């Protein structure tokens, strides 16, 4: 499959993999991911991600075209759909101080994420970098590399002090590696952190002048809903109040309730 690709250019490098952009005669622009398999855990994670993406046939996720492991070199290669557009991080300005746009985006993201939640999978790494806005503004969710498959055996060591995550978007159960408490409500937390960051133009757990780090503030549940440039907004504050809690049982119990809440403002 990769041999059929032309114009291969390195695109990005991160973690354990290199990412290339290429042209494929049948699929057009594609992304090639290559990397070294460093452990059984990383192999298992890659396999699970590939299998999941294979099962998902949705515009909310990139399509998977090819997956191969070279056991001689211990390298993997994945070819997947290239998503036109740019990351949510590059589009923060569109949503700044704009609750209705943020709620519409959340509504779409929940529709997309419900596809994996229904399979008992938690993304666990939602952040603006892992959401690509297509030219029609529909989000595409990428990087399921540390997704938690609740029906399968956990790959995270129980003794690890912190579970797999991007700490500044992680819920307290991730930061404390409370594995048994991880479920879709973990993703709800990240979604609302992102929503407030879009609204404020600032990470909500990073209040200027705070003597605590973002992670410490997450664990203390200290967040802001307004700053010197953006006033408090009822729907954003209510959203924060419903979801930004250290304990999952204080958040929406399921995505239908989350969507129901969004609908009251949409």
């Amino acid at each position, binding site marked *: 499959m990769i041999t059929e690709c032309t114009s291969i250019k390195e695109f990005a490098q991160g973690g354990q993999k290199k990412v290339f952009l290429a042209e494929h005669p049948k699929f057009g622009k594609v992304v090639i991911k290559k990397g070294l398999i460093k452990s059984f855990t990383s192999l298992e994670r890659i396999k699970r991600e590939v299998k999941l993406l294979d099962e998902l046939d949705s515009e909310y996720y990139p399509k998977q075209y090819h997956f191969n492991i070279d056991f001689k070199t211990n390298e993997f290669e994945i070819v997947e759909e290239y998503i036109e557009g740019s990351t949510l991080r590059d589009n923060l300005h569109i949503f700044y101080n704009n609750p209705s746009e943020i709620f519409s985006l959340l509504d779409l993201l929940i529709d997309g994420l419900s596809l994996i939640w229904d399979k008992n999978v938690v993304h666990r790494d939602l952040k603006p970098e892992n959401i690509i806005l297509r030219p029609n503004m529909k989000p595409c969710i990428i990087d399921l590399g540390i997704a938690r498959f609740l029906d399968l055996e956990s790959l995270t060591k129980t003794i690890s002090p912190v579970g797999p995550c991007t700490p500044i978007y992680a819920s307290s159960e991730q930061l404390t590696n409370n594995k*048994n408490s991880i479920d879709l*409500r973990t993703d709800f937390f990240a979604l609302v952190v992102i929503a407030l960051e879009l609204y404020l133009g600032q990470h909500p757990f990073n209040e200027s002048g705070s003597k605590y780090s973002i992670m410490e503030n997450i664990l203390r549940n200290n967040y802001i809903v307004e700053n010197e440039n953006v006033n408090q907004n009822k729907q954003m504050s209510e959203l924060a109040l419903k979801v930004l809690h250290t304990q*999952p049982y*204080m958040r929406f119990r399921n995505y239908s*309730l989350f969507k129901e809440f969004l609908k009251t403002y949409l």
Partner: protein
Amino acid sequence: MKIYHQTGFRYNWNIESFEKGVGDGLIFSPINIDSDKLISFKEKMKQVSFLDPQLYLLNEAKGSLDTYPYFPGNLKPDFSTPDLDNSQDELAKLCVDYQIENDFEYLVIPTRYHADNPTNYFLDSTDFFVDPFCEYLKEIKNSKKVLLSAIIKTVMLTDDEKKNEVLNWITGHQNIDGVYIIFENNFTSKQIKDFDYLLNVLRFIKILKMNQLEVHIGYCNTEALLYSIAMPDSVTIGSYENLRSFGIKRFQDLENAPMRGPNARLYSSFLLQWVDYVYIQAMEKLITNYEDFFDDSEFKPLMFKPDFKWHFAKAEPYKHYFFVFDKQIKQLPELQSDRIFYVKQTIKEALNLFKIIENNVLLDNDSDGSHLSTWFNVINAFEKEI
């Protein structure tokens, strides 16, 4: 808010009362009701009732539990915990099929009881019961509402870590509609007088309701009135004390265990208390119109006859309680703020009545109003939090 009969020994008293319009349904008890007998009950009654599968001790064949197809000992003799690894799907199927065959109002996922909850208790409960049940329910495209059973130990109310664990576990199940919750009661007094315990119960119910779960509370005594202010979906009425306060002994096959017969008591909705008959006899002699402290019912005239032989195993005081308490629960206002006001008023009035009684008859603290001040304070504390 509904009121279910918590059935047990002498379940016919509950059925007789239910057939006279007392209570909204029954919670059936397999250790007391033979499976074939339950199957033969009227459909109309079963359709508004549900089954407590009673797998608390997994393989303890108390009473008629082994007449039920899902009883683990019927799957394999000497069934033990490791057998759950291979039999959980079959057990779930048999238990669900039995409940569907009977067309109960709700389908109930069982739970196990451990004196000291092991660290993997919740994970095991999910693996052995919740997941297999939910998968089978999905497979058969079940449309009935599903309740998850949970026994809440005192430590789960008082210890934050344990409380968070159990609440995250209950609310983490996507395919349940509610909980059949039992607050384990280790108190030695007849009424619960522990401020923290009661306030924590109310908070617990409130969180479950916040999660939009139906909350059905089993094994209630008269504190059900207090719990009502947290707006659960149902509470229970039961005859003997072991149906109004959960203890695992009820499910243990204690051969030749000594039987303890408590004094007979009569419930008064005016006093919010069960009064020992010994004091009722004293009241008769010392207080004019003493019978006005007790509610009217079809059983009252008989019980207040001079030759009535009070005994804890007689039907009348319990049937009287079912009737009176059901009426009392039905009188509660629908709106939470109104209900809180109403219960507080009722407590105040009860305290005043106790003052009148105790001018003439001194009561012990299992018959007096000593629980009421705690209840009143708990309501005030809870009110501040909502």
